[in-house]
């Protein structure tokens, strides 16, 4: 990715994100957020983040791999337990990475 298209990417994402933050503060008193939209938006973090997480574990090299040789899937499941119990980003990363390195050291080729 060239430097120019990289900066353009930042600006386009940044502008859209700013509008999302600004829109309803600006529109207050003019347009209320419809109830169905408010209800739907509640599910965005769960759905979007799961859509990023699941394929990253099941398709580590771009192909579906549900075998025991898929270390990222195994380490990810370990990380999921930590994430579930603690909801702590740093701890989840630490445990997940250590599991991945451990599996690669022990069983990797």
């Amino acid at each position, binding site marked *: 990715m060239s*430097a120019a298209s990289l*900066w353009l*990417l*930042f600006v*386009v*994402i*940044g502008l*859209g*994100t*700013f509008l*999302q*933050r*600004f*829109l*309803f*503060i*600006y*529109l*207050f*008193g003019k347009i*209320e*957020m419809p109830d169905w*939209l408010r*209800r*739907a*938006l*509640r*599910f*965005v*973090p*769960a*759905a*979007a*983040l*799961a*859509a*990023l*997480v*699941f*394929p*990253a574990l*099941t*398709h580590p090299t771009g192909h579906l791999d549900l075998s025991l040789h898929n270390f*990222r899937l195994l*380490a*990810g499941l370990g990380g*999921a337990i930590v*994430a*579930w119990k*603690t*909801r*702590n*980003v*740093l701890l*989840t*990363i630490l445990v*997940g*990475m250590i599991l*991945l*390195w451990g599996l690669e050291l022990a069983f990797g080729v």
Partner: protein
Amino acid sequence: MKKWSGKNPALFFLFGTWYTHIKNKEKLVYKTMRMNKDFSAGVRGALPILIGVIPFAMISGVAAASVGLTFFETLGMSVIVFAGASQLAVFQLMSVGSPWIIMVLTAWIINLRFTMYSATLAPYLQKLSLGQKALLAYMLSDQAFGISVGHFASNEKISHRWFYFGAASTIWVAWQISAIIGSLLGALVPASWGLDFAFPLSFMALMFAALSDHPTVVAALAGGIIAVLAKGLPYNTGLVLATFLGIAAGYAAESLKARQGVAQ
């Protein structure tokens, strides 16, 4: 006996002006004290949250370095976008070579939650100039929203905007400094460590934090499973599709639950 001011209307006028001036100044001083008090309350409210903000910002800086962004590019993105989860998502998509438009759409979808925050905070951030509203909107973060809404619920008679400004600006400054440090540290980490695996791991922690009830779990399961099934779709469009279907599934589960509640 005549009053002294009655002798000279000009004197009376002068005295009146002076008196109003003093009274206004008193009001202004009081108002300024109130602002300072609420601003610093906002700063203090944000401090405990920084324990979570600082490592997450540093991770985003390390992640930026791991996909090859320079120090300057990392800082630029961090200031322009200022939304950690979407920045990490973009890095993950960069590392697998996704097209530009998918990176933009994914980042926007992840940041859709800000419209909800913005609608919730809007009543507290009125009677401000357009520029002031824009500045406060730009600083909006998950943490600033959470702290402010929690504080407003139990404190009615405060300057809401100053409290919010105190909390949001504290988080903004801590975020930028930590991202810079992360970027410098990340440049030292070799690619062979497989640090790109930190992306799904960090999303996992954020995802579990978003699972507050049964319908949100349905949204996550549907979004995740559809994303796996739709992985083969061209240009990584499965990600966007899965997110929308996941939202729809959560919405449907909530409606169903509400209907069952009525029936019982």
